[in-house]
């Protein structure tokens, strides 16, 4: 399969190119990045200012209070308090096993929590049943391993939710799906099966699939960790574009460049706890906690 490059949607080209260049472009091949921030930092600040900071006010869209999660005797999450406001883009970072993916999965109840409370747009996540199913559709999820449905063409992957959950007609769902595939630069792949797509293309279809449900927020669980280095950017570009368009996002990631330049806030987790959170520039240049300092010195060492 030929790798198609991903021209950002014409309408959003300016902003997106801006964000993509600032956030992900130049540093990418160098591996763990972020230390070489400099000018990009001010760009992030400008972008933040452009979008305005009204997002911090009002009730949070996603809120976790005192969340504990046990796997048997092992405590994966310890007293997690986290608020994500409308339009906010939050990076969740930390070492493997720190609980960041678990937290992400708990937020739309793919994992049950042992104690505490999670609310989505003011509604408490129910235990099971129809209500949970409905709330879950409000929060889209993008997985590390894409999880496209392999028996369905790209466009049918995108339309399945709108048709079977929202009851949209095939014509309407197809029209919307084509718009979304266009947006992620894959309109020409609409009739391909997932096996005929590269990893980056599959992940972009997965993002379109999540967007098709018109979610209030998107959760990304290490969206680029399973990708070849050369296609990571095409996915990060799409995500940067979404961030630019005001989508509320929680991104579990090892892409420090993305966390630093596209996200509004960085949350650092270690051993199931939120150790530190703050503005990306502040976090990456002057972390307050010793654990965050140790973590950053490890990943930014080379």
């Amino acid at each position, binding site marked *: 399969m030929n790798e198609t490059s991903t021209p950002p949607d014409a309408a959003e080209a300016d902003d997106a190119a801006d964000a993509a260049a600032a956030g992900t472009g130049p540093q990418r091949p160098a591996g763990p990045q972020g230390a070489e921030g400099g000018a990009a930092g001010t760009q992030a600040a400008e972008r933040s200012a452009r979008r305005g900071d009204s997002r911090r006010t009002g009730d949070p869209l996603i809120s976790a209070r005192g969340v504990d999660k046990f796997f048997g005797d092992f405590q994966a999450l310890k007293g997690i308090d986290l608020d994500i406001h409308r339009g906010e883009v939050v990076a969740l970072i930390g070492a493997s096993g720190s609980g960041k993916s678990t937290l992400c999965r708990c937020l739309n109840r793919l994992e049950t929590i042992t104690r505490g409370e999670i609310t989505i747009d003011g509604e408490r996540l129910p235990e099971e049943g129809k209500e949970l199913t409905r709330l879950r559709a409000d929060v889209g999820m993008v997985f590390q*391993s894409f*999880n496209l449905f*392999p028996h369905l063409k790209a466009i049918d992957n995108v339309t*399945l*939710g709108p048709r079977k*959950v929202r009851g949209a007609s095939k014509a309407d769902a197809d029209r919307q799906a084509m718009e979304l595939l266009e947006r992620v630069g894959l309109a020409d792949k609409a009739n391909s099966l997932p096996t005929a797509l590269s990893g980056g293309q599959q992940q972009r279809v*997965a993002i379109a*699939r999540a967007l098709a449900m018109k979610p209030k927020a998107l959760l990304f669980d290490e969206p680029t960790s399973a990708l070849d280095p050369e296609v990571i950017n095409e996915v990060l570009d799409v995500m940067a574009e979404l961030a630019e368009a005001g989508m509320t996002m929680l991104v579990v990631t090892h892409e420090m460049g993305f966390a630093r330049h596209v996200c509004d806030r960085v949350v650092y987790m270690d051993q199931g706890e939120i150790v530190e959170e703050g503005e990306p520039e502040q976090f990456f240049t002057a972390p307050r906690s010793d654990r965050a300092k140790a973590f950053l010195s490890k990943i930014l060492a080379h």
Partner: protein
Amino acid sequence: MDAIRENIPLLLQGIGTTVALTVLGYVFALVVGTAMAVARVSPIPPLRWAATVYVEIFRNIPLLSLLILIAFGLPDVGLRLPYFWCGVLGLTLSSAAFVCENVRSGINTVPVGHAEAARSIGLGFFGTLRHVVLPQAFRSMVQPLVNVFIGTVIGSALCSAIAVQEVTWVTQTLNIRYAQAVLMFLIAGAAYLILSLGGAALGGVIERAVSPGSGRDRSRAGAALDVTAGAQA
């Protein structure tokens, strides 16, 4: 050969009964077995337990014992069924247990991430099964289900023990009359062979039809062939 010529209607009737037993037993088994498999993967523990108990009982009782229990045990509790339907019931109960396990293992071949992705776009338990899990699982289930079909064909012979006049019963009866065991059992054997091969051939057609790369997406099937060619070179 007179033995055959004089009894063609009887033999045909026997073969017809065998086909009816097999097809009815198998179709009901597919329905019951799939329902049991859904119960075995459901989030409701009592359903899972009930289906597990069902499978362990009916998979492990010899079919002959089961048929005799049904034919001679059910009247004791007041339920009288014609022997033919006793045969269908026995085949259904037994084959359904095997269908259940095949469907369940097919479901288990689908990566859990696909089910999670389905849930994350708002599909419930049945929607996830119906639209995402079962269509994928079905591909890996075709050949095991052909095995169950062949088992049902062969198992239908045991219905002769409860006087269902299928092809084994007919040929056995004719053998007693004409003392031509080899000829008679060759006839019965041929009937079973044709039924089983027919079922397997149909299974092959279905498997090709549902395999990825069929239909419009021929290009990928072509690519797969190229890979094989490269490996041989």
